[in-house]
């Protein structure tokens, strides 16, 4: 296989990580909404944690994106 093709395929494969991150972020906000509907009074208190969890999860996606970038532009 050509090295160039392998590079592009690798970059594409790196974005598979987004599947897991999608599940994770969906889980975070889904849990938040269902929790907030059960107890709306507690919702503002945990919203900071929700954002923190979202940022930490999103960072995982960005690590994958970084790998893709590295493959595309730096290798």
């Amino acid at each position, binding site marked *: 296989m050509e*090295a*160039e093709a392998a*590079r*592009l395929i690798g970059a594409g494969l790196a974005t598979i990580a987004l599947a897991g991150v999608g599940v994770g972020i969906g889980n975070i906000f889904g849990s938040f909404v269902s929790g907030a509907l059960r107890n709306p009074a507690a919702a503002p208190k945990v919203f900071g944690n929700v*954002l*923190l969890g*979202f*940022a*930490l999860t*999103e*960072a995982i996606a*960005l*690590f994958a*994106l*970084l790998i893709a*970038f590295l493959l*595309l*532009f*730096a*290798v």
Partner: protein
Amino acid sequence: MEEQNPESLAGAESHGAEAGHGGAEAAHGGHSPLSVFEIERVIPMHIGGIDVSITNSAIYMIIAVLAITLFLTVGMRGRALVPGRWQSMAELSYEFIAKMVRDNAGSEGRKYFPFIFTLFMFILFANLIGMIPFSFTVTSHIIVTFALAAVVFLGVTAIGFIRHGASFLKLFVPSGVPIFLLPLMVVIELLSYLTRPVSLSLRLFANMMAGHTMLEVFGGFVIALGILGGWAPLAFIVALTGLEVGIAMLQAYVFTILTCIYLNDALHPHH
């Protein structure tokens, strides 16, 4: 592959059409979406063999410092008993970080409040100034974020050892774990501790870089689709800019709160 060293990619216009480059660059007419991250020497300087040139990055760091100082001193100039809008914002940022330190690191963390406040304001302003079109984002460079994370990591580790001596190592020995699992747990804890600066710096760097690259890519679509079709990506860019401003604040918050949590580990290792 062999022709693609970083330098040649940096000035990608010259051989954008060549085999080495993917579709993304072809779509931009040879203008790499990564060119926003280029560093240029504005005033070249060398002191003692070390390159201390004033680059565009250094200029934006200085701008950030000036902006923070102006924001806080001009805002507090009146020292009014009933604060105006600007003074409210300055006080709000103070109280926000003070509360964060108090909640996450306890009262002993009060001593490190100036550092954490400086860290937060620096990252926040670097991120936000980077959102201004045609400006440079200091925190989109891994070396900058890694240096900040390394300072946090080394500082926190030093605080832990100074305050608790060798008993700080108990941080790596989780309590209530079966004895046969303990060696494995210690290794895992140690690894997760050592990867902290990496994840801390990569998170900020990757967020900033991905956001700006995405804006650049969509900006390229606006040019490629022209005056008729370019409005859709332009609208998307506007929405994305709002999101990126949010991300800029969120990442400053995340960096700071993780610093507070790490500091708490160093101050109270026996949880």
